[in-house]
């Protein structure tokens, strides 16, 4: 540690590092490790039994697939929203900009109830789909709708500043070299915003995996079909099966960690190609 300190002109390295470690321990590491310890009371056999239960596996599938689908949707349409907010000026732009943050601020239960009402077969939006025999609320589709609502700000807010940073001159240069609008987007703009888009995607994805409040109202919560893993954890807690609940939580934690690691790896790889 001494040699790190020797090369830095910034004072207080030891203090800052010490504080960071303490803070992270208190806020993140200790709670998470207690998760491990609680799960450990089950033993390997117990852990295996809980986590490979049919119902648990089905709920994990629902959670991760719905989250992934919602994150993909958000990546696409969040990019469009960010594009519009950065590139164009129109009356009420400030208001639209503020609207994007609403999913952050709204209590998730309120969002869930509202969405469930809208997308129910007799709801405002739901009845149009019901005419074509498409059910949204109380199906996995409803889960995707709720998670898309929750995740939108993550993509918009990470892409927006990066997109604003892409200089107009770069696009002009590309145009004067004869590039079509599509070529300009594909070869010049997209590669510049792609790392930010990936970050936004990862954030929306991670947020969706843990989402509980908004989903349970719209999902219908039918086991094996539209039951999400966080709900299963809560129901285990309600039955005072703390070890079982933590076992599922631990499994989710591990899968999420691997996925986020993979996304980070992808980002590292794409950044390496563009050494700054």
């Amino acid at each position: 540690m001494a040699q790190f300190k020797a090369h830095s002109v910034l004072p207080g390295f030891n203090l800052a590092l010490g504080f960071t470690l303490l803070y992270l321990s208190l806020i993140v590491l200790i709670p998470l490790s207690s998760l491990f310890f609680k799960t450990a009371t089950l033993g390997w056999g117990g852990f295996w039994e809980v986590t490979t239960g049919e119902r648990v596996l089905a709920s994990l599938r629902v959670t991760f697939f719905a989250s992934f689908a919602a994150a993909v949707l958000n990546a696409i349409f969040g990019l469009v929203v960010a594009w519009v907010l950065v590139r164009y000026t129109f009356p009420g732009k400030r208001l639209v900009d503020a609207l994007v943050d609403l999913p952050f601020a709204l209590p998730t239960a309120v969002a869930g109830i509202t969405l469930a009402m809208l997308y129910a077969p007799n709801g405002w939006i739901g009845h149009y789909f019901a005419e074509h025999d498409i059910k949204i609320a109380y199906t996995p589709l409803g889960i995707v709708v709720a998670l898309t609502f929750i995740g939108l700000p993550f993509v918009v807010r990470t892409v927006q500043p990066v997109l604003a940073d892409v200089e107009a001159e770069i696009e002009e240069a590309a145009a004067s070299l004869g590039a079509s609008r599509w070529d300009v987007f594909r070869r010049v703009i997209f590669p510049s915003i792609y790392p930010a888009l990936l970050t936004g995607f990862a954030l929306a994805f991670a947020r969706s995996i843990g989402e509980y409040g908004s989903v349970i109202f719209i999902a219908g919560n039918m086991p094996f079909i539209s039951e999400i893993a966080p709900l299963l954890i809560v129901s285990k807690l309600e039955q005072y099966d703390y070890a079982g609940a933590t076992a599922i939580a631990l499994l989710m934690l591990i899968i999420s960690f691997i996925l986020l690691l993979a996304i980070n790896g992808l980002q590292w790889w794409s950044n390496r190609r563009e050494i700054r």
Partner: protein
Amino acid sequence: MSITIQNLNKQFGNFTALNNINLEVNSGELLALLGPSGCGKTSLLRIIGGLDVQNSGKIFFHGKDVEHRDARERNVGFVFQHYALFRHMTVFENVAFGLRVKPKKERHIETEIKRRVHELLQLVQLDWLADRYPTQLSGGQRQRIALARALAVEPQILLLDEPFGALDTKVRKELRRWLRRLHDELHVTSVFVTHDQEEALEVADRVVVMNKGNVEQVGSPDDVYAHPASPFVYQFIGNVNLFHSRTHALWTQQQGDAVAYVRPHDIDISLIPQQSSLPVVVKQVRAIGSVVRLEAAIGQDGETVEIELSRERFNITPVAVGDEVFIRPRQIKVFEA
């Protein structure tokens, strides 16, 4: 390819950026648009390149109206002050960009693209940097890459917007000589924008001096420096001393309101009064390289005059701060006020 500009106007809201510009750029010449910031020179360049649209007036390339051709169809190479290189692409890919986005029928095969890019990189003497990324290069190198990129599509016209504005003095001087040599090799019609008079006078075949959206003077560098057409050009190009007819009627030789313009190096000094000379008191003596710059005050009100002498001339008549000397103009230009 020649460029003809007729009655060109451009407004940004209430601000007139270009006021009825008429200009002819000859085929194969290197033309400088010179003026202070906000004079409209960059707007003019961008309109020629199709990056901006005029409010009225016409532009012809080789006699053909280009109104309905946007930037991608004008076959114009554009070089920006801040390089505008694609950061996520290697130097090679940056230069190859224009070749890769050509419509399928016109696109070259990969080996031909490779050959062309390396040829261009050799032309700008940076072949050894092909695999680097723009952020790994110095400013001067980046601008040369930007130039190679612009030349890749074999433009009929090359437009450069303050190409050396972001570089330090030494690199700037090197690059503008290099640009001059390159132009002598390629003979592509080029227009470049600058606010640096030295740069314009050194590099260009002809100089267009602009002010507040108007063309003040068009001429060879020599012409513009030696025979300024207006007080603005006189003041913008080189240092100048002003003598008003009310106080120095002797020099302006006019009855009405007039101002005499005298360059610092066109003033001679002597220790004794001569015909039509002015007494001044030396306030400052500064030797800068091969010249000695004097600052002197006229009479009681202390109006300052700048005088520039060669070192030899100064050694013949050495003066010190506080001395009274007599000045006389060798060359003078009078404009009515």
